[in-house]
């Protein structure tokens, strides 16, 4: 079993040691934020960003398997870890010159059309540039067949809310199965748990039954049939648009905290933390001595001010983040005080994004549950009743994914309603309040002069400028923008680009975000190996029987 004891793996000609349970990324990020990968179009250096296996920042090849997320692979002794892209390495990539050769960006829609006789040459080159990992050297070994699991209730997410609801369901005499994406053991009482397991596809139920697909890391397929699903997937730290927002060293709070641990220093010494709320506190609490400043898009909450002053960390409320400068890392962050205030800059070696959390709502979209736009949060949330029941019978939401109307859905109420098969009640009124601060922030930001690359979609290297051009050319709505620019078609499935693109499009198109639309949440919501899907074939009843 991986992770019981230390392991040595090879990486760039060295032998690297990982502590028990430590991931490849953890082991290579001990002395600083590493450049692990190269971006899609411009070959820009990329490093860890999300920390939870959702972005393209740390893709490596492990034992010949491409697309392995270094942040989710706990190495075994002797593992062979290699760069996917980069010549000679991801760290020093001669092709990185492309980034300098195309300062205005590269127009894949209209570019390289002429002369026509060079078409095959262009295509040859571009194809080699864009491809990520080489075809695996071998087929994965054959495995024993899987069987469909049919628990009474499935809880997706084993965080605080997921565990609490599992406990409450137990009290109602139901034994739930809890799926948790995080690696490492999952402590549950009276419930079955599957750690390292991602739910990837939850179609609309048929005949009152849900079919759910997923997989356990690295590639074991999981198929479930059940009558009730509780989604407690929580939320994640959002991205932010600014120049050089894709540089290694720009991390989400989750990404940064995943690299901090007991007896483990963060891979930075002077981070600028962006945000003014509770998430900034988490960062200050866990690596406060490595924080150089806190910069907030708007106000800073008193408890953060208190904590920062204890740590002697300077605060810059009401600031626009304009640009992270550096080459293969961040050296300086350029800012401007809101409302046309002065520009200033801060020396730093990392930028930690802790300004906004977004719910993991993909499965609700897939299952056909109604979601409503919340102006106050600038995001979509499932419509739920007092017990967390969504508009799809049998599908429930709890925790931060269910919105932030206080008081939150109580686990006992949910468990009781679920056990009693209580019909869905009237919807809770959503949290109301002023329009999310981030809207005003972007309105002001879009008027700023831009330097550096503003990556609207870091997975696919789509620039903010390309989105503006699409709008200027008369294309409207996020679905069309996605098809026009490629925004949201990368590995993160739109998690780090679409929420902000919605706000930007709403401003550019001059209509509210719900009118801009939303992109279909295509399965699988976490990329899933073909072998783990293939081994589920035949195990599920055919659609006709469902």
């Amino acid at each position, binding site marked *: 079993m991986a992770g019981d004891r230390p392991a040595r793996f090879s990486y760039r000609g060295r032998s690297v040691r990982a502590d028990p349970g430590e991931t490849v990324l953890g082991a290579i990020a001990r002395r600083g934020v590493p450049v692990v990968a190269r971006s899609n179009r411009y070959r820009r250096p990329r490093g860890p960003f999300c920390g939870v296996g959702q972005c393209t920042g740390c893709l490596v090849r492990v034992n010949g398997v491409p697309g392995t997320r270094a942040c989710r692979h706990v190495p075994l002794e002797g593992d062979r870890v290699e760069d996917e892209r980069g010549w000679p390495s991801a760290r020093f990539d001669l092709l990185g010159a492309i980034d300098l050769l195309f300062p205005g960006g590269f127009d894949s829609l209209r570019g390289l*059309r002429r002369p026509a006789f060079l078409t095959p040459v262009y295509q040859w080159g571009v194809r*080699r540039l864009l*491809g990520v990992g080489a075809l695996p050297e071998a087929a994965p070994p054959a495995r024993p067949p899987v069987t469909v699991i049919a628990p009474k209730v499935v809880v997706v997410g084993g965080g605080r809310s997921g565990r609490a609801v599992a406990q409450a369901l137990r009290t109602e005499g139901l034994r739930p199965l809890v799926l948790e994406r995080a690696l490492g053991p999952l402590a549950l009482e009276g419930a079955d748990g599957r750690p390292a397991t991602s739910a990837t596809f939850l179609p609309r139920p048929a005949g009152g039954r849900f079919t759910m697909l997923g997989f356990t890391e690295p590639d074991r397929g999981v198929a479930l049939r059940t009558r009730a699903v509780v989604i407690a997937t929580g939320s994640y730290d959002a991205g932010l648009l600014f120049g050089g927002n894709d540089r290694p060293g720009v991390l989400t709070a989750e990404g940064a905290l995943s690299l901090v641990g007991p007896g483990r220093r963060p891979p930075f010494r002077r981070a600028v933390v962006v945000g003014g709320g509770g998430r900034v506190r988490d960062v200050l609490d866990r690596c406060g001595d490595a924080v150089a400043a806190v910069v907030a898009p708007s106000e800073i909450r008193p408890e953060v001010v208190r904590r920062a002053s204890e740590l002697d960390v300077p605060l810059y409320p009401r600031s626009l983040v304009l640009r992270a400068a550096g080459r293969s890392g961040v050296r300086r962050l350029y800012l401007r005080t809101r409302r046309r205030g002065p520009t200033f800059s801060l020396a730093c070696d990392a930028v930690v994004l802790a300004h906004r959390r977004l719910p993991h709502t993909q499965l609700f979209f897939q299952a056909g549950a109604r979601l409503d736009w919340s102006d106050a949060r600038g995001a979509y949330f499932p419509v739920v009743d007092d017990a967390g029941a969504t508009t799809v019978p049998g599908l429930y939401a709890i925790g931060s994914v269910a919105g932030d109307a206080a008081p939150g859905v109580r686990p006992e109420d949910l468990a009781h309603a679920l056990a009693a098969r209580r019909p869905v009640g009237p919807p809770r009124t959503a949290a109301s309040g002023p329009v999310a601060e981030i809207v005003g922030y972007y309105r002001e930001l879009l008027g700023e002069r831009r330097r550096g690359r503003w990556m609207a979609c870091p997975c696919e290297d789509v620039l903010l400028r390309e989105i503006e051009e699409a709008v200027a050319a008369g294309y409207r709505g996020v679905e*069309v923008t996605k098809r026009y620019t490629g925004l949201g078609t990368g590995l993160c*499935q739109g998690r780090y680009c679409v929420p902000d693109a919605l706000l930007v499009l709403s401003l550019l198109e001059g209509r509210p975000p719900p009118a801009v639309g939303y992109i*279909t949440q295509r399965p*699988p919501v976490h990329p*899933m*190996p073909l072998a783990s899907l293939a081994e589920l074939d035949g195990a599920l009843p055919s*659609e006709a029987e469902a």
Partner: protein
Amino acid sequence: MTLPRSSYRAVVVGGGIIGLYTAYDLARAGAGPILVLERGFLSSGASGRNGGGVRQQWETRGTIRLARESVEAYRRFGRDFGYNLWFRQSGYLFLAESEVELARLRTVHDVVTAEGLPARLLDAGGVAELVPGLAPGAAIGGSYLASDGVLYPFPAVWGVYEAARSLGVDVALGVEALGLRVEGTRVTGLVTSEGAVATTTVVNAAGGWSGEFSRRAGLEVPNVATRHEILATESLKPFLDPMVVRASDGLYFSQTMRGEIVGGRTVGHAPGVGPGVPSSPGFLTGMARALTGLLPRLGSVRVLRAWSGYYDDTPDGFPVIGEDPRLPGFVHANGFGGHGFMLAPAAGRRVARAVLGEPTELDPAVFGPGRFLVARRDAPAERLGLG
């Protein structure tokens, strides 16, 4: 939104690639004011969901000619329309798993080569050379034409849309065609969600919804919408050049410019309704099994996303192009199944000619709307399955 005019020379229902090309060609011919109605967003139909495969290997000469003409148009697209389709001509390879299929491919091969296209029949070794990592025994032979290829469909939609508009075509997005106005036996207008317009010609280019629209107009047609699903993996370095199609069931896959393996197949006949098209677990698991069966080394490669769309299928698998003999002024441009994109440039021209009353040079027994009205003749040749 109100419509820009109250009267048009022709109204095209459906703003997919077929409707847009038709409108573009009508405008180029100076036909007069043209309106395109699209009830969703641009590219919301099959034209924004397909695999971009373009082939000329067909079993009838008429289709081969349409396909060849379209290949030429797509090669020139960058010059004519200003968008790069990344049309990569690296071949279509049909795989035969049995002697029966090989014989079928041979029949098609004869028609294709008689038309002057240098298609080649391959043995198992020749196939293996074109598809690195192909499982042993996956094919006993195949047929290959190097000038077939794959393109990105979206820029084609943008290019033709912009060109049509710059020629004065009105494209009304988010506007639905609700029904026809008929006086006597002739079309006189169309009712839309934004009011009525007068016109003597309505083109039904509604893709998967064309059957529904014809029926709304009171015409019985055999078109059925069939759900077709497709998936894309994470990006790999280029290793596969041709589009590969399994002749037995039409399952296909290719590697895009970005490196993704994109592949799909038709999952039974699930007649579709409505604009939303969901994916199904059965497709994902079945396609994954088939794909890893053909290319076992793909096993640890991850599926990035799956989606689906509607084929507009006809009983004989050929499209319907031309005026409906039962209702003068009602012109069909539908029934393209899984091949509308690869035929669109040439098909659009023929539809425009049909609207203008010029000869289309299409065999009515293969393409004409009247062919379903006469007693069924034998199918011309067995069709090559392709998703």
